[in-house]
């Protein structure tokens, strides 16, 4: 079996494995629809990556790197973009959590004041 066929099979196996893993997490309700779709698309990219090797070979030759290295670089860039996007989401969630906590405290204080006024 040639090296390129092995690479295709290896990428496809990893892609399929991660697809199954993401699907199970989604079924158990651990991932919401938005993230499930995102990660499934990324897994599909993994499956397709092996098949894409003959297509990207000319680009890899132009950059003087191997097609596998080009795929790896593409994958890393994609993951970094996803991580940044998730960090932005988490920062937004922190701010929302903070606002909710503040509002809850204000409401409780208002209720306390009403309670105190009524018991007088």
């Amino acid at each position, binding site marked *: 079996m040639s090296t390129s066929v092995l690479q295709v099979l290896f990428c496809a196996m990893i892609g399929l494995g991660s697809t199954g893993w993401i699907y199970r997490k989604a079924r158990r309700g651990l991932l919401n629809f938005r993230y499930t779709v995102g990660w499934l698309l990324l897994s599909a990219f993994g499956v397709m990556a092996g098949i894409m090797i003959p297509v990207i070979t000319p680009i890899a030759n132009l950059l003087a790197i191997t097609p596998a290295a080009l795929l790896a670089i593409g994958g890393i860039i994609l993951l970094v973009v996803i991580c940044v996007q998730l960090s932005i989401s988490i920062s937004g969630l922190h701010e929302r*959590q*903070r606002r909710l*906590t*503040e509002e*809850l*405290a*204000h409401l*409780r*204080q208002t209720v*306390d*004041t009403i309670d105190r006024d009524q018991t007088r």
Partner: protein
Amino acid sequence: MTRQPLTKQNVLIVVPALNEAASIGEVLSSLNEHGHPTVVVSDGSVDATADIARASGVAVLELAINLGVGGALRAGFQYACRHHYEAIIQVDADGQHPVSHINKLIAAANDLNADMVVGSRFADGSSTMSVSSIRRVTMRVLAWSASRATHSTITDSTSGFRLIRQPLLGRFSRLFASNYLGDTYEALIAAGRAGFVVREISAPIRERSVGESSSSTAQSFLQTIKVFTVALLQLHTRI
């Protein structure tokens, strides 16, 4: 700009507190004696802090989860804005800030027409506070940086004893950093760079009556580098 003069009645004392049951009662009775309207923000305390505060008759905001000093203060600022206070004074719950200095801050804000007045532990050079050499150096660097941002002499950029007046108070009630030193140093940088008038007066502190400071020197040093980088790269909260 002519502003409403600050008095004891239109200045709210904001006391952020995390598990300060041992000391908060004494602080609040002292504030009550002097007739200062006060709100205690219990920052996710698991002890009797909130109950003691309620029993002393002051308003209490009880945060369901710990948001950090900056988070607690922002809730206090919102309370002040919703109840139409003209300014707030931040006072620690550990009894380090002498209540007698509160009137000094109010008088300074009126006389200097300042948006923020910081009570400095070091301004008069008589501080007896013991700090490690690393901490002293970082505090000096931060003070230098804060002085540049505010165009005013700041000797104690990490002091938690300060007065904040409208309209700056309103801005901070919407945007206020909750990270380490976000409520002190970063707030100074944000106010200074937004063009607000920041001034400093001398206000020596007392030793903590109960408990000890929550951060180690190493932790403080690393966090200080982080917050200094934030200021250097202008990544601070925009108000």
